[in-house]
């Protein structure tokens, strides 16, 4: 970890920790004041100049605390607008990668689907067919939806909203998948930490749960899964930074999001198993992590989506080609 990244993680930790009980608006102000929005914008343009490894590290910290804010979406939206040469969206912003409708004669009519925190943000950066545009949300009709964690994933309906699209060459879906891997990795590590702590304090049969071999073995499996998610995520972020194949690290991010998705079942069920009934209550904070993991698993590509996309790509490489491709990419990275 670079020194810059260590400082970044440290400040993310302390700010995310401090907003634990705050309202959405208060939390947002704290995070915005810290300047996370411009994380990926280069320094010459007044940004922080962070790379994808930095972004991944911050997303992990957010995931560890189940941060109830569209922080990663804001970072990606700001970056994307900047890349497109558009004015940075004012205030809180989210992203839309599923767009039903089009921009014609300077106006967007249609639906931005499943916009994270759509009802709370001021603007949305939408990307479709190689173009990006920014839409203020005040003109939208909001159809409220949520993911299993209760996080807003709203459909925003627009009728003839003024929009100035600009060409942009980013695969925002891929970047958003990497964002979720970071959050999932952080959440899995926290679920592990909570489970270990619980196993060390709760007593049954006159001993702490941690002394039962069955519990130890289950927690070891949970730890291995969490380690796999983070290993995959970090490697994918690094690959995105180096981009050895010039495709935005599509293969690495695909593999990482899929591996993260595959870990969710074991991570959530094991964490709950170790906790017993207390973990099934609203009051106990485990569900803030596990329900998010369940929701994030479907977002920006569920298992089937990435398995087929990756599988089709790998099939074209051929049997020997798969090995050649993954080694070539990591050697060059």
């Amino acid at each position, binding site marked *: 970890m670079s020194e810059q990244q260590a400082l970044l993680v440290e400040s993310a930790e302390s700010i995310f920790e401090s907003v634990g009980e705050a309202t959405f608006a208060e939390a947002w102000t704290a995070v915005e004041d810290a300047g996370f929005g411009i994380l990926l914008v280069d320094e010459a343009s007044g940004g922080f100049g962070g790379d994808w490894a930095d972004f991944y590290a911050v997303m992990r910290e957010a995931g560890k605390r189940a941060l109830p804010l569209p922080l990663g979406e804001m970072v990606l939206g700001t970056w994307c607008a900047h890349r497109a040469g558009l004015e940075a969206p004012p205030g809180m912003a989210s992203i839309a990668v599923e767009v039903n409708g089009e921009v014609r004669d300077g106006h967007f009519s249609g639906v931005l689907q499943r916009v994270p925190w759509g009802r709370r943000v001021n603007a949305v950066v939408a990307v479709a067919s190689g173009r990006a545009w920014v839409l203020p949300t005040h003109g939208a009709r909001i159809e409220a939806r949520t993911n299993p964690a209760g996080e807003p994933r709203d459909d925003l309906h627009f009728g003839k909203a003024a929009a100035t699209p600009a060409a942009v060459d980013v695969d925002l879906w891929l970047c958003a998948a990497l964002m979720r891997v970071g959050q999932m990795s952080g959440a899995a590590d*926290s679920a592990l930490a909570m489970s270990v702590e619980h196993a060390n304090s709760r007593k049954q049969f006159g001993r702490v749960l941690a002394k039962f071999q069955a519990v130890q073995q289950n927690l070891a499996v949970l*730890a291995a899964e*969490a380690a796999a998610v983070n290993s995959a995520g970090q490697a994918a972020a690094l690959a995105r930074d180096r981009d050895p194949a010039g495709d935005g690290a599509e293969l690495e991010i695909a593999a990482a999001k899929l591996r993260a998705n595959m870990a969710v079942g074991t991570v959530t069920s094991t964490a709950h198993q170790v906790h017993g009934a207390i973990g099934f209550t609203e009051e106990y904070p485990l569900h803030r992590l596990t329900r998010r993991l369940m929701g994030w698993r479907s977002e920006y590509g569920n298992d089937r989506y990435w398995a087929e996309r990756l599988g089709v790509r790998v099939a074209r490489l051929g049997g020997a080609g798969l090995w050649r491709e993954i*080694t070539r990419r990591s050697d060059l990275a």
Partner: protein
Amino acid sequence: MSVFAIHRFATSTDAQALRAEVRAFLDENLPEANPARRTNCWAVLDPDFSRRLGEAGFIGMLWPKRYGGHERDPLERYVVLEELLAAGAPVGSHWIADRQTGPVLLRYGTEAQRRKYLPGMARGELYACIGLSEPGAGSDLANIRSTATRVEGGWRLKGQKVWTTNAHDAAVMLTLLRTEHGSERRHGLSQFLVDLDLPGVEVRPIVDLVGHHEFNEVFIDDAEIPEGALVGVEGEGWTQATAELALERSGPERYLSSHVLLASLIDAAGPEPDAVLAGVIGRLAAELWTLRQMSMSVAAKLASGEDPMVEAAVVKDLGNSYEQALPIAIQAALGSEAQLADGSALAGMLAMLLQSSPSFSLRGGTREIMRGIIARGLRLR
């Protein structure tokens, strides 16, 4: 909380060039083989291949030149190993000598021991085996009962080792014996080099469930070995053997030993597989890619001089599970029963791995033992 410290993998020289070298070697030297013999390939013996590999400088890569080694860096060696495994090369003859016996001698052995064994090992001609397990000492290795007793000019050995892979092909066994009479558990154990042609040492085959002869029983009945056969410090055998296990468990063979099966599936599926097969291939590729990142990280940690015991246990456990799930997933996704017996390369490899993969989470320490190590990393025990 995490039990897995991520270390950055970077070779000191151009990894692509080294890979090209290994691939060119394989193009020349990989023998035509029954496809099933490409799976689990680090258990497949081929002295001729090992000799040629040694000639090419791909054995003993880290060892000093004066012992026949090549003084390369550990991550270069890692690159060579993964290339050999991914190609399903028959590396079984020399694998143990190169991976652990040689390094143990460099760390603990005497000059005479190094001179006696290392050059032949590096040439790919002198092979070694691991004499740890006994009938009463499997997972519970500290329950070793075989003994070495001091006699005039050396030691007299008595006891029995079991599951000794390649003892029938190896010149020497690095073994752990009880040297302190009446000692218990981890105390009073010492490591020895036992030449397998000594009088009083008898190797008997054990045929495995596939019908192969890979492991053996080694009976030792009053065999006498010279003073100079003790490795390291008398009574320190447990600590030394534990260091050996770190080498045994941390390599790419713990996830890559049946990669040829996945490659064969991809070839059989063709460039435009249906959605079901594409999905299976995608999932397996994601696991493979992730395990490779983890395995490289373990190699990098080991290369930096740190002990990756817990991380290696994580990779071994996940890798064994992946390699066991691989044939199961492929069998489940194939079109028909006929495909399992159609004489194709895929069918041959699949049938072999369905049978042999249960052993992956036994050899080198069982799944439960690995998870116990991870649990210790979590400070649960």
